[in-house]
């Protein structure tokens, strides 16, 4: 009987401790961080949104988009993002990688097809197509491509838009983000921001 009573007492203490800690660490802490975010860093806290020149929100500087038609075919006048496994592609409500293993024939076939298509679209050799152009990212929302993949697309985009190749090439070079602090991660090009700048060129 004594042990039953002390076990019950221990659980009563445990329950009160859990409730108090839920108030402090769950609700108090979360709302404190939210307040700091909304007051001091509202742009970041709300998703680093990007606006077009007419002020409409067109996406987030952190989340990639597809630049394809309704059938999923690449639109030649836009720089293309990486392949995506999030929903039908770049679905911010369903982040996902492909999770296909290195020997999975589905993945091998997909890479071979993407390689052939990218080479054809951009008029380059298959062997020169960079890896990021033919592999799906971890999140399915990768906003970046490698500088190599961006450069590969310059001639095709310029041709589709009737722009000078040198002008588009210069735009790409100006949009290459160096490694953080000069040595962290990899150099990247943010595709949505590049395409926004591209739209300005035309205007």
């Amino acid at each position, binding site marked *: 009987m004594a042990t039953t009573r002390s*076990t019950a007492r*221990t659980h*009563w203490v*445990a329950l*009160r*401790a*859990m409730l*108090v*800690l839920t108030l402090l*660490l*769950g609700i108090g*802490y*979360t709302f*404190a*961080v*939210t307040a*700091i975010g*909304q007051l*001091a*860093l509202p742009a*970041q*806290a709300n*998703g*680093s949104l990007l606006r077009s020149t007419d002020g409409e929100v067109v*996406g987030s500087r952190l*989340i990639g*988009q597809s*630049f394809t*038609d309704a059938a999923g075919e690449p639109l030649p006048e*836009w720089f293309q993002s990486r392949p995506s496994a999030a929903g039908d592609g770049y679905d*911010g*409500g*369903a*982040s*996902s*990688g*492909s*999770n*296909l*293993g*290195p*020997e999975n024939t589905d993945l091998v076939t997909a*890479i*071979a097809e993407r*390689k052939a298509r990218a080479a054809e679209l951009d008029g380059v050799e298959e062997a020169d197509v960079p*890896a*990021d152009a033919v*592999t799906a*990212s*971890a999140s*399915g*929302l*990768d906003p*970046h*491509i*490698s500088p190599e993949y961006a450069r590969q697309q310059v001639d095709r985009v310029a041709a589709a838009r009737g722009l000078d190749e040198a002008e588009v090439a210069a735009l790409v070079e100006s949009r290459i983000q160096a490694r*953080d602090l000069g*040595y*962290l991660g*990899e150099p990247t090009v943010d595709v949505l921001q590049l395409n926004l700048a591209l739209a300005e060129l035309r205007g």
Partner: protein
Amino acid sequence: MGALFAILQAATVALVLALAYRPLGDLMARIYTSDRDLRVERGLYRLIGVAPRVEQSWQVYLRSVLAFSVVGVLLVYLLQRAQAVLPFSLGLPAVPEGLSFNTAASFVTNTNWQSYSPELTLGYTVQFAGLAVQNFVSAAVGIAVAIALVRGFARRGERTIGNFWVDLIRGSLRLLLPLALVSAVVLLAGGVVQNFTGFTEVATLTGGTQTLPGGPVASQEAIKELGTNGGGFFNVNSAHPFENPTAWTNLFQVVLMLLIPFSLPRTFGRMVGSPRQGLAILAAMASIFVVSLTALSLLEAGGAGTAPQLAGAAMEGKETRFGIFGSTLFASTSTLTSTGAVDSMHDSYTALGGMLPMLNMMLGEVAPGGVGSGLYGMLVLAVIAVFIAGLLVGRTPEYLGKKLGPREIKLASLYILVTPTLVLTGTALSFAIPGVREDVESTSIWNPGVHGLSEVLYAFTSAANNNGSAFAGLTANTPWLNTALGVAMLLGRFVPIVLVLALAGSLAAQGKVPATAGTLPTHRPLFVGLLVGVTVVVTALTYFPVLTLGPLAEGLI
């Protein structure tokens, strides 16, 4: 050039950890040995009804840990079941029973295995009032148990090993809360979101629409890494740009995961009155870490296998901004601590590269391991190492002035048997039980061939070692895997805790034997080498056969 940047990146992490080692280790020693309570703590003790100066025997300490965890499982379970009526639930329905059990077990045990896709399953209230709270308290429980074991080594002839409620409250309030608050603001500045807006539709540049998620992410992200929990706010965890936007936030998260586990050896050294004993433990942890990180980075940079070779690099399932090394650094950190967060998809790693995270977990999460659990795991291995050294030279083994008799060795031996038993039994049953086997093969496994076995082996390794990472192609939201993995997580957490607290009690009750010429010095490189050897050999012997059936078969044939 790439190699140079990789080394610089790793060196930055090492430098920050080295700078934090003494101050943070000493701070934790003070937190857990101080006689003074803060005013707010005194209020809390009155509110929950405990007397902070009353010390507990190991049995009472254990009962408190278990009671607190039972309540935690129930609360997280009920919150999920009640989701439909909770605020900020984004219109999502109640989570089904099996999945609610699995998730409750997962977050209370500091595993953070996720059978679900958060975007489609969980509203904000379950995340911040259920999961984030467990991120704090499961971490505080892990540290408390480690500190109790350290007290066992430090005390002489005492019946008690501390007061669990005091250790819990102090760990939460004095250590984790301030660190999490600062880290959350840093992550916010880097672009991690923190709002309650739900999903928003935006019109894209090409005239389509895109859904953008929201949520109180930064607050949860900070404690997710700091407490080596690892449960992502989003499906793809730290690969999601809203959880981990840049290469520097990636490095910051790596540091957060390693900060407490790598500083606890200092706390241990201080509390047993010999900081160099802590350095020896640190050296063993760090050498395993460096070797494992190097191996994984070389394997992924090498990019062996049909798909990576064809693509030109192992970039499937990796983000451009992190690159190969940002991904392998995160993966090694996450699986050598018990975090289990991912910034890249381990399922798509090269065959041998994908084996490394598995091996990291199989080591028992000790290099440096989870917050607290890494230290107590390594101290148990140190007990085994001392015992083996004693056998070799024919002397009674002693560690830190404590005789390691039959009781201590039995407890330590049982400890190292628990997780391998769970991993191998769980994997074997998944392919042995009629009905279950067909379900696992047709529903759960995503990749064909031996890679499918690796997915199941990875899942049980992750659950039993309380890591939480996955070969995420596996569909784990099935009755069998939700139940079996849930049970593996609970047993993999609490059976070792029972054994560790029993060991703490038995050590605390002993006097201290003076060191003699025959005592093995446990602060020298010889012992560090022995400890690393014991850690590796125990793992290798246990798991080599099953690894030959999965990743080794895929990578070498």
